[in-house]
Each structure stands twice: as structure tokens, then as C-alpha cells.
């Protein structure tokens, strides 16, 4: 590998690490929005559950998946509207990878709520 290639290899490795992404102000801003979307999704779900007479905050896999898709869909719509997918792309992050940690956030929040509400 010649000097130029070695220099370029160093540059390639210099792109944002996953740890740096998780602690970045941009990810934290997405996390805040996501939590608000989670609250909205949970409230809508609780209202629907009350109408049909089932426990409003219990953890049901199918329902959680629907809410999660709504949350991610809304967040992606916001990101694309503001062209921030270009920003993520420029630092080498696919949308799916950048937002993957939010799946665990959703599961953790929903599981915690179900336990508290039991």
C-alpha cells in the first residue's frame, strides 16, 4: 500500500464511530423527538385499548411493533424533510443504522411502563 493509499485508509477509518454517534447532540435530539413520539403513540394506544376494554399499558408484541413503526416513520419523515439524511450520509451513517438504537429505547420504555402499570 503506497503512502497515498495509506493516508486515505486513515481518513476512511476516521469517520464517526458508533459511540461518538450515540453521544452526539444530533442523536440526542433524535432521542428527544423519539420519546415524544413514543408518548404520543402510547397515549393513542391507551385510548384505543380503553375503548375495547383491554389493559391500556400492557406489553403486546403486535401493538408495540405498530407503534414502533409509527414512531420511526414519523422521525424519518422529519429527518428527510430537513435533508438531514444527507448529513448522516456524509458522516457514513445509513438511516437504518443511525436509528437502530431507538428500537431498544422503545422496547425498554414500553416494558418499563407495562411493569409499572401492572
Amino acid at each position, binding site marked *: 500500500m503506497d503512502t*497515498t493509499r495509506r*493516508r*486515505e485508509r486513515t*481518513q*476512511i477509518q*476516521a*469517520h*464517526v464511530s458508533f459511540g*461518538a*454517534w450515540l*453521544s*452526539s*447532540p*444530533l442523536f440526542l*435530539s433524535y432521542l428527544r423527538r423519539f420519546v415524544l413520539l413514543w408518548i404520543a403513540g402510547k397515549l393513542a394506544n391507551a385510548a384505543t385499548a380503553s375503548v375495547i376494554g383491554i389493559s391500556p399499558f400492557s406489553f403486546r408484541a403486535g401493538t408495540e411493533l405498530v407503534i414502533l413503526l409509527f414512531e420511526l416513520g414519523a422521525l424519518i419523515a422529519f429527518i428527510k424533510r*430537513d*435533508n*438531514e439524511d*444527507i*448529513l*448522516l*450520509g*456524509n*458522516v*457514513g*451513517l*445509513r438511516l437504518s*443504522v443511525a436509528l437502530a438504537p431507538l428500537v431498544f429505547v422503545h422496547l425498554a420504555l414500553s416494558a418499563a411502563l407495562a411493569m409499572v402499570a401492572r
Partner: protein
Amino acid sequence: MNAPILAGDSITLALGGRTILASAYADAVPGAITALVGRSGSGKTTFFKILVGERVADGGQVRWRGAPLTRPRLPVLAREGLFYHPDRAWLARHLSFNDHMALCPRDGWADVVEVFGIGGWTGRRVGTLSEGELRLTELSFGFALQPVVAVLDEPFRGLEPLHREQVGRGLRELADRGAAILYADHDVESVRRTADRLFSMENGMSRIVDGFKTRPLHEWYHAWPH
């Protein structure tokens, strides 16, 4: 001349029955500023979108270091050293330049703030910046990523003379560090001052222009056979 790092070859695209690109070619070579010049609607932006995977071509090839890419994707190319500046604002409006720097490599340029003269507003939210300040901030961030190739769609658009000079200086600095720069513009006088190589695009077709710094404008600009 170095071999191109990024090239779009014989790119074609038709939308709604209208030909947007008809065998367009342009490339970016290390250490040089290459301009793609053409009127609004000539296909420059579409060509750039195809290079970075924002749009899929009907035909032709995008090549990275000589190898054809089946499907170019910005995050993948960015990890290989590409920086893309589209023709629309793309930084997070609710964050400042300093906030964005958390996404840059730790050994990124310490001097982009100085090169682009953005020191006065690095702590302000991007959404509060003027168009010129925003453009400089976007380019500063991109150059702090230390790109090997920069694809810039109209980086001078809407800038006042001082900011134009700062952007021109930044492009030269990046090229001097060995990066390949490909940018679009329709201001031919600016291109004459800034670029080392030139492709001219008209009606979705492109050609390389020799002697553009010295030859009279009418000999090469918009002198396409129709």
C-alpha cells in the same frame, strides 16, 4: 494527470418522457478542482444526484477508483472519503456548527473555521444563519471530514463577493491537500478563476473544455450544436 477517483460515464436519464441526461460524462481527479458548468436545467444537479446515489440512472456507469458501482450509496461512499454538498440546506437547523463537530473525526481540520472565516457564528443554531453563512458552515463541516472527493452542487450560489472568495480559497486548500473536487456552477467567470478543469453540460450532454481560462467565452460556452 491522475486517474479519476469518481466518474460518471455515459449517464442517461429520462423522466416523464423527457430526456434529462443523454450520455453525460464528468469525473474528479485528485489534486484538481473540476467544474461542471451549464445553464439551469442542463442536468448538472441530476448528474450529481446520480453520482452519489440520490437518483438511479437509466443507463451508464458510476465508477469509484475505476471500478463500476452497481448502486452508489452516499453513506458507503462517504466512508470511502466522499463528501456531497447538495443544492439545498442539509445541516441540522436546530444545532450549531460546534454541535455538528461531534460527528467529525477527532483529528479533523482544526483550521476550517479559519479558512472559511466562520468563527463569528460557530455557536449559533444553523437555522438562524444567513444563506451565505449557512453555505460556509456546510462547506466547513464537509471539509472537516477530510474528504478524498468532494461533490459540490453550486457552492457559490447566492454568496456575496467576500464569501465567494472564502469558498474559493477553501476549495483550493482542499485540492492542494490532494482531494478531488467536482463542483457545479453556472457563473463562467467564477469558474475561470477557480477551476483547473472544466466540463460543459448542455441538454443533458457534457464535454470537456480545453483552454477555458484563455479562450473567448463564445467559443466554448453554449456553443453547442442543436
